[in-house]
Structures are given as structure tokens and as C-alpha cells.
């Protein structure tokens, strides 16, 4: 996963280099008029539909047994500021068509920006030609499990105010106001802040008879405050706990960024005088703003079927949850209280969508039930590989709806749904978990994160660390990172929060695949306590 910090770095480079052609993420301008607020379900543009149907028809005529086409318009809007000045405003847009063709059990894909009937038909023929060229290297033929067709489907994400209707002046003014609040804290010398919006209009048609039109809006506010010690021997960063969400400007209003920024600045400042952590084993009380990322790395990626079967071996890696025959129904991920849901339906979450890029309408499913592994994330190409398991459990063999492509110019493959730790039965809260802990560390916010290619050994930081003694927070710590072995860590889970403590965290940039693609994904979590976790001190002298 690419992290907020990397994003900040990229943003920094981007603003420094102004127009860095290679640095700017591909895309966009607000060529589109602003969407009215509370818009009705989108309708597919007639011309777009005509091109989609032309593309799949051309693929079929050229010999494809199955083909689908996607035409998408992906728009981004960024406003970057530092301290009391604007750094840049960027509007991006990309529009094009990608065609995927299955010929004699082999895939081909081609993408074009030539948005004419001839242009998309040529791409379709190229996709078929690539599939045919690959036939010489084929071994087992690729097959797809059936799915319902959705001949006239529409979906729209849960937003009420389109960020594209808000002026750049208002966006910049909000950020500068937030920055001013952060700068009030002692020693806070620098603040970076940004608003990042995405509008993703996806159109899909397949030879299975689906024609689907969807619109998703996503928003991510970022504030990072830096406190520098008076003698210049230390500096500390604090990034705001403002999750990216599948929502619109209304989310930004609700967050009250100036208030968030004040706390962010104060905590950056406090970190300068925090006590360096003593190395050792601690009980950790992890806040959802920290735990979402650990869930992402140690469960989200581990339960991807393509990884478990070796399809990502050359890049993202495989999974310790392999082979599925030995793991499903048998592997004890954690205790009874551990329930992990996968869904693409949570309101405001980033992976939420009406239909996936296989044309499948996703349903919620449990990856882990009462601590036992029950399922994997799948696409139409993969679901058949688990037929034995679904048959055994009297479940239909169908895709879990996890197919996704970043844009028109990327081929779709298995990507992560929202993967979340479900609340416990008792309505415990963050404070209850701390009160029940004798010697531990409470961690808020996501920091450094790294995990091996099979998802066993992970190391995670955080933003703010509080020392717990005798059920009370007694002071702030710094230089904390926890190291885990995934099965041991989750089996050390012994206390979780209830429904009212559930929060969603997430990222815009989860990387996977070759060529690399990024998707945005959310992870819901409740506060949770993990026993006896190894904590290291990351402070060194330069």
C-alpha cells in the first residue's frame, strides 16, 4: 500500500516541480459541469453505450468467447497548502475505453483513447489478437463462473455534496484556516494540508448481456503538522486521523478541519517531549485509526485468492493462507470474538460499489467467522477454484464480486473489498479497554507499515502512543513500533469494542498487480486489545 506519507512526498515533489509530467498521477480537468447535489441515479450516456456495444461486438466477431468493455471518466481535484500559503491546485481527468477478450481460454486486453466506433473496435480486435498470440504459451484454459446479467443497471455512491461544486477559494480558505490552528501549538513550525477528491464514472458492458453505469465520489482531507525542537536535534510529525471516505464535501464539513488541526498540532508538539519507549512486550490497545491498516495488511491481503494460489508471486507476493484446501474451515486466525466481514456495501466506504468489473453484483460475506477462516476474495475467473469448498458447504459457486480495474487503461483483476473487524457483543468502548489494561500501550493513528510477501511478519508504527499503567493513561511515548507474526498477533486478541466504537479507516492507494494498479479500500474496526506484543524502539542517532 502506498501511504499517506508517500502521498505527501509525491505531492511535495509535484508542487515543487509544478508540472512534472512524470510525477502527476494520470488525469483530469473539470471539463464536466458540476453535478447537482443529491443527483438521481446516473444514466448511461447513449453515445457511451453505443461505443461499449460496438467494442464487445467487434471482439465477438474477431473470435472472443467472452468480452467486456469499460469506458470510464476518472477525475481528481487536489488543493495543496503549507503554513499560510497555497502550493498548488490540480484538476485532472482521463477518459478512455478498455476491452478485455477471452479467446480459447487466454486473455487479451487493449485500451484506447480514440473514442469513436472505429477506435474502440480496433482496441477490441487488438485484445483478441493478443489473446491469440498468447495461445502458444497457454497451459490450462481460463474459465469464468456464470453470473446474472444486469442489462440496465445503475448505481451511485453515498454523497450529498459534489466536491466539484465547491470553489477552489473555499477549499483553500478552509485549509489555511486549519493550518493556522495547527500552527498555534508550541514548536509547530510547519503544516502541510491537502484536499483530494475523486470522481469516478464507470460504464461497463459484457457479452453476457450486462450494461452498467456507476458513479462514485471520494474525499480525503490530510493535515500533517511538524514540530521542531528549539535546538534542532528532534522533529516530530503528526498526521491527522482524517480517513479517506467514499463521500462528498458533506464529509469535509462534518469533520471540522480547524478543530482537527488544532489537536493534530498539539499532539505533534507533545511528541517532542514524549518518553522514548522501553523495548519489550506490552498489551496493545489499538484504536480503529491504527488497527485498520494492520487488518489491511495481515488479513485483507492474506485472504486474496490470487495471492494464495501464487498468481501474485512475482510482485505483491503470495499468502500464508495456502493451500486453500488445508486452510478453509480449519485455520484458526484468532479467538471466537474475531469476525471479519468482506463487503462492497458499507455506506461511505471506499471499495463500496454496486457492480464489480466482472459485472457481478457483490454480496457481503464472512472471511473469518468466530476465528476460523471461511472464505477468500474472488472474481469470476477464480471462484471455480473453490467449487469443492462451496459444494461441501452447500453454497453456490459464484464470484465474491472482488473484480476491479483502476481505470479504463488497466485490466481488471482481483482487488480488495472493504474488510472489517466486526464489533463485539458487549458495547465496550476505547476507555473501557484502557481501564481493563494493567501495563500496555494505546496506539492511535497509522504510521509506518511493512509486512512480508506472505503476510506473516509485520511491523507497524502509529501516530500517537500513550503509556497505560493500572488502567490509566500515564503519559505519551515516542519511537514505538510493534512487530507481529500474524497468527500469533490475532490469537492474542482478547477484548474488542462494541458497535458504538466502530470506525472506518482506509487508503486511496493500495497497490497490486503488474502493471501496477492502485485501488481505494476501507477497513472498519473497533478498538481491540492484543496481549503480549513485541515493541521495538525506532529512535537512532543520525
Amino acid at each position, binding site marked *: 500500500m502506498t501511504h499517506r506519507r508517500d502521498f505527501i512526498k509525491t505531492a*511535495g515533489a509535484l508542487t*515543487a516541480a*509544478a*508540472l512534472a*509530467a*512524470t510525477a502527476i498521477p494520470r*488525469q*483530469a*480537468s473539470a*471539463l464536466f459541469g458540476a453535478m447537482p447535489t443529491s443527483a438521481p441515479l446516473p444514466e448511461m450516456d447513449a453515445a457511451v453505450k453505443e461505443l461499449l456495444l460496438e467494442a464487445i461486438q467487434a471482439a465477438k466477431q474477431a473470435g472472443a468467447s467472452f468480452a467486456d468493455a469499460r469506458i470510464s471518466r476518472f477525475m481528481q481535484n487536489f488543493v495543496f497548502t503549507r503554513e499560510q*500559503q*497555497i502550493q*498548488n*491546485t490540480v*484538476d*485532472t481527468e*482521463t477518459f478512455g475505453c*478498455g476491452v478485455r477478450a477471452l479467446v480459447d481460454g487466454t486473455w*487479451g486486453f*487493449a*485500451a*484506447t*483513447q480514440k473514442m469513436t466506433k472505429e477506435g474502440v473496435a480496433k482496441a477490441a480486435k487488438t*485484445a483478441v489478437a*493478443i489473446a491469440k*498470440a*498468447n495461445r*502458444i*504459451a*497457454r*497451459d490450462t484454459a481460463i474459465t469464468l463462473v456464470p453470473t446474472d446479467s444486469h442489462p440496465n443497471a445503475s448505481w451511485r455512491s453515498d454523497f450529498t455534496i459534489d466536491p466539484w461544486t465547491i*470553489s*477552489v477559494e473555499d477549499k483553500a*480558505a478552509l485549509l489555511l484556516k486549519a493550518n493556522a490552528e495547527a500552527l498555534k501549538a508550541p514548536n509547530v513550525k510547519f503544516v502541510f494540508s491537502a484536499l483530494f477528491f475523486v470522481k469516478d464514472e464507470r460504464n461497463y458492458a459484457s457479452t453476457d448481456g450486462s450494461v452498467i453505469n456507476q458513479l462514485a465520489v471520494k474525499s480525503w482531507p490530510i493535515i500533517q503538522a511538524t514540530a*521542531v525542537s528549539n535546538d*534542532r536535534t528532534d*522533529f516530530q*510529525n503528526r498526521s491527522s486521523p482524517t480517513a479517506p471516505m467514499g463521500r462528498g464535501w458533506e464529509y469535509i464539513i462534518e469533520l471540522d478541519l480547524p478543530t482537527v488541526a488544532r489537536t493534530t498540532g498539539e499532539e505533534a508538539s507533545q511528541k517532542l517531549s514524549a518518553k522514548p519507549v522501553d523495548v519489550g512486550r506490552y498489551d496493545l490497545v489499538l484504536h480503529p485509526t491504527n488497527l485498520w491498516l494492520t487488518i489491511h495488511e495481515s488479513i485483507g491481503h492474506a485472504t486474496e485468492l490470487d495471492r494464495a494460489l*501464487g*498468481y501474485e*508471486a*512475482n*510482485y505483491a*507476493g503470495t499468502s*500464508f493462507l495456502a493451500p486453500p484446501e488445508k486452510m478453509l474451515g480449519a485455520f484458526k486466525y484468532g479467538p471466537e470474538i474475531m469476525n471479519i466481514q468482506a463487503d462492497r456495501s458499507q455506506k461511505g466506504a471506499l471499495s463500496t460499489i454496486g457492480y464489480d468489473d466482472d459485472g457481478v453484483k457483490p454480496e457481503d460475506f464472512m472471511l473469518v467467522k468466530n476465528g476460523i477462516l471461511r472464505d477468500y476474495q474472488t472474481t469470476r475467473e477464480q471462484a471455480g477454484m473453490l467449487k469443492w469448498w462451496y459444494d461441501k458447504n452447500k453454497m453456490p459457486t459464484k464470484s465474491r464480486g472482488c473484480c476491479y480495474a483502476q481505470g479504463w*487503461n488497466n485490466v481488471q*483483476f482481483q482487488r480488495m473489498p472493504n474488510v472489517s473487524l466486526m464489533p463485539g457483543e458487549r458495547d465496550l468502548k476505547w476507555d473501557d479497554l484502557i481501564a481493563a489494561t494493567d501495563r500496555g500501550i494505546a496506539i492511535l493513528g497509522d504510521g*509506518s*507499515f*511493512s*509486512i512480508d*510477501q*506472505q*503476510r506473516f*511478519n509485520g511491523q507497524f508504527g502509529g501516530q500517537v502512543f500513550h503509556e497505560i499503567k493500572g488502567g490509566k493513561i500515564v503519559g505519551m511515548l515516542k*519511537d514505538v513500533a510493534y*512487530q507481529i507474526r500474524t497468527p500469533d498477533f490475532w490469537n492474542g486478541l482478547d477484548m474488542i469494542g462494541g458497535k458504538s466504537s466502530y470506525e472506518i479507516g482506509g487508503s486511496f492507494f493500495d497497490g497490486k498487480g*503488474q502493471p501496477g494498479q492502485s485501488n481505494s479500500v476501507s477497513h472498519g474496526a473497533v478498538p481491540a486489545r492484543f496481549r503480549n506484543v513485541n515493541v521495538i524502539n525506532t529512535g*537512532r*542517532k543520525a
Partner: protein
Amino acid sequence: MSAPMSRDDAQRIIERAIKMSQADGCEVSLNANVTGNTRFAANQMSTAGEIEGSTFAVQSAFGPKHAVVTTDDLSDASIRRAIEQSEKLAKLSPDDPEAMPSLGPQTYVPVNAYHEATAACSPADRARAALTALEPARKAGNVSASGFIVTGNNVSAFGNKQGLFAYFSNTTANYTLTVRTADGTGSGWVAADDHDWSKLDYKSVSERAVDRAQRSRGAVAIEPGRYTVILEPQAVGDLVELLIGYIAARSADEGRSPFVKPEGGSKIGEKIMDSRVNIISDPADPQLGGQPFDGEGFPLGRQSWIENGVLKQLFYSRFWAKKQSKVATGFPTTVKMLGGTTTTEQMIANTERGLLVTRLWYLREVDPRTALYTGLTRDGVFLIENGKVKNAVRNFRFNESPIFMLNNIEALGPTQRLAGTENGGDIVMPVIKARDFNFTSLSEAV
């Protein structure tokens, strides 16, 4: 075949766009790419594709107000809309007190990184290349090959209202291959990268990956701790390329970088690494072949960052250079760490106890004050004892800084163009031998 956009076409589009501009300043960046890729995994063909695309980005400026708009539709109407939109956004934007005027016309070093063999590479060529791994792997029966072959034909151009025009065309060919043993205990990674497709030796990559996978089977767990390491160029690059994220002089001047001098300013001029360490950028270096200008059209030549262990230079943006009365450097597009004369075999022969490391994985910043990173070894770690490679060992997690590592150099070897960097780009690194590399825990991942 030819580049996806000729120099004349790029210049024509940029000039036409600039003519439409009503702003004080107008900068246009243009990209055009044709890429082809073939993927295989678990001894099966996976996805394959060809993608054509272009991007037009315009920054309009009215005094200190500016905004960027990009589109990928290069029609006149679309370009006009993008320019109008950027002008509208710029006018609405608050003043940027750091805004700099556009550069005037520049001269650039010639770089030849375009190769016809790459531009002409077909899906069938890539499928045949994939077979050099798939056939032996299927035949062997006890290994599984997963690989990715990607070629690109790219153009990047930049122009502005002051008459600056820059154009660069290159081709790229990249092959990465992971071979895993069927028993799940061995994994070997080998890769190759060149601007010229015909220079990639697929067969050799395949043979070496199979060999490495077989040799890495049954890895033994040894205690984590500080070890002497011999890092292959990819492993060196995985850590050293991260230094690019810290090269802003401004961060050091502001007190928030590993290069902060407590008394004020940066450590430029101070010896911060072993005296054999030299790190440069040079688009014209034959191993690199990088873009000779940055995102502002600033000309890039040979730039020394670390010279004989001394921090020679940090990146000065035009604004920061002006403010600090320094000379702007431009932002580098290439990185090369110069090598030495010790071969990997000699390094091994001179090692009493150490580890030979293929590559590193999932590196993430742990502490920006020291550029401390955590990450893991991957796809082949071998124990060296008494001058000989003995057996494979389990992977480790490390917590290490490239700055610390480059202080602990024992020997430098031949350089290689990297194929597997997380961020891509033109990077060349040597084999190095370093002492006291800090491995902090074991990973059972293969």
C-alpha cells in the same frame, strides 16, 4: 515503428496550446505512451495488454496565482477547455508567494534511449519470451514460474510561454521473474532491464531464477542480529534510492531531515558516509539514459550528490535557491551509485561469516530523522561461512538506514541497471559488502 509522438508534433501541439493562453504564464507538459505487457503466474498465462495513452497538462499563472489542469484528449477543443479551466482556477486561487516565473529557452544534453527493437516488440515476441521460463518450469515439474514482461515507447515534452521547448523519447523493456519450488520452501527472483529489448537475455534470466529457487529450498533459521552482508545491486538500490526522498535542501534548512545541521542549515560539505561512496545523477550516462530535463524544463546534467563520502549537494528548487542565495539544481531523473573493482566472488571469498542478499521488500519509513527504514529480505538469502556460500537461510526483517549502511562499506563491486525498483526509473547500483546490517526479526515467509 517510431515514437508515439514526433518532436515536430509535440512542438506543434504545445505551441498551439500556448497561443490559446490568455494568462501571464503558461507551461505545458505532454506525454504519449504505448505500452505492451504479458504476465504469467503459477506456470499459466495470465493477463496481457496493449495500452495507448497521452496526457496534456497545463499550468496557467496570473502573477502569483496558478493552477494545473490535465486532460488526455489532445483535440483542439479539449486543449482549449483545459487551458480555460486552468485559467479560471488560477484566477480563483490564493496567491502563492513562492511562485516563480517560467524558465526561458534551454539547451539539453542529447540522450539516446530509443531503440527500434523495443518499439517493434509484439505480443507474440513477449509470449515467446514468456515461454523461455514457462517451458522449462513446466517440464521440471517441481517449480512454478511467475513473471512479467513489459515494454514501453514513451514521449515526454515540455514547453512554456517564454519559448522553452524540451522533448525526450525513450523505450523501456523490463522482465522480472520469480520461480518458486512446488514444495513452497524455495523462491528465486531474477530480473533484467534495458532501453533496448534485444539486450534482454530471457533465457539467462530464466535459468538463473530456477537455479536460485532450487538453491533457496529448505532455508535454515538463524538468529537475527547485525550481520556483514553482500547485497546484490537490487538490494542496494532498494535502500539507497530512498535517499531521493530526503534530498530537498529546504527540509534540512527547516530542521526536518536527516541532513539537518543542529547549528543551522544543512550538512552540505560534511563527510556523512564512507569515503568510497559516490552518488550521482547523469541522464547522459550510458547505463542510465534518463530524461535530460525535470518537470519545469530545467536542464539536467551530471550532478554529484555524494562525493567521496561528502554530502556535496542537496536539491535546491528555483524558489529555495533564490531565497537562500544558492544555485538551483533541478530535480534529478536518474540515480547512480558508482561501483568498485571487487567482484561478488571476491567479496564472498573474503567473508568469514555473512549473508548474501538478493533483494529487499516492502520498505517503509520508520523515522524521518535518520531515514530509518524497515523492510524484509526476499527471494534468496544465503549464509556465507569461511569464504563460501553455504546454505539458504530464512528471511529477515531489518530496521536500517541507507545512511548508516553507506557508512559501513567494506567493498564495492560492479554496477547494474536495476529492474525491480518500487518506483521505477533509471537507477544504477553496485554490489556492495557492508558490515553490521541490522536484522531485527525472522520471517518465515518464502
